[in-house]
């Protein structure tokens, strides 16, 4: 079993979680009309053989969506964090004046 260390619930078997796929693709804004952007978001995947940032939801636990960094070659997990936290950081980054 993968053991995913939920930041608030502790280490759990991965069957407590729901997989959410590649977390490196960014979802276009809800009102982004660009078909290309949506096409890439929905379909295109880098699918690396190596470190992979991916979404998991602790669905039978705290129900938080997490971002897990895991090596697809050996399943070793390097980091786990709340998707919200990372997202927040990202957006603040974007907000900061260039």
């Amino acid at each position, binding site marked *: 079993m993968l053991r995913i260390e939920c930041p*608030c*619930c*502790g280490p*759990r*078997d991965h*069957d*407590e979680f729901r997989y959410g796929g590649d977390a490196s693709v960014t979802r276009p804004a809800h009102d982004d009309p660009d078909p290309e952007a949506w096409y890439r978001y929905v379909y295109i995947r880098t699918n690396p053989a190596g470190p992979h940032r991916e979404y998991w939801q602790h*669905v*039978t*636990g*705290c*129900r*938080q969506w997490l971002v897990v960094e895991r090596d697809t070659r050996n399943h070793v997990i390097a980091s786990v964090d*709340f998707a*919200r936290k990372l997202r*927040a950081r990202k957006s603040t980054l974007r907000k900061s004046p260039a």
Partner: protein
Amino acid sequence: MASLTSRDFSLSVADCPLVQIEGWDGTLRQFEKSVSASLGKKLPASVGETVHHKGLLIIRVAPRRLWLALDEGTEVPALVVDPDLGCSVPLGEGRARLKMAGPDIARLLSGRIAVDWHAPTAAPGRAVLTSFHHVPVLFLRTGETACELIVPRSFARSLSDWIAGG
């Protein structure tokens, strides 16, 4: 619903009066302040911690979510959550409380849920959200050889049968 009592194990099923409150991202501090003020008790700090106060068991089930479980006979606390800080949902109709006790309980539970009976995170007074035969349940460690499972009502019989070995 399967309830059973034998020399070394007892299982009973009870209702589970319960209110869920949740604070918004960003204003969590204020939310917690106001709630603990109106409950007159400090809230459990981290997920899995519980605080018992005036017939009310306060459980942190997620970073911004708390469950207020009422002991039998106690009234729902008159708790108004400021909509600018958070919200609340009653969940007391939809859950059942499976109460279990017995010397062999640790062994028995090990065949049901993936919780380490001896870990500090499962010590008496702790809560663990986990899954039981694919169903989300809340494990409450109530004593040395006693615990409860708060389970969705629609699964309560299937799960209690399973525990009782039916």
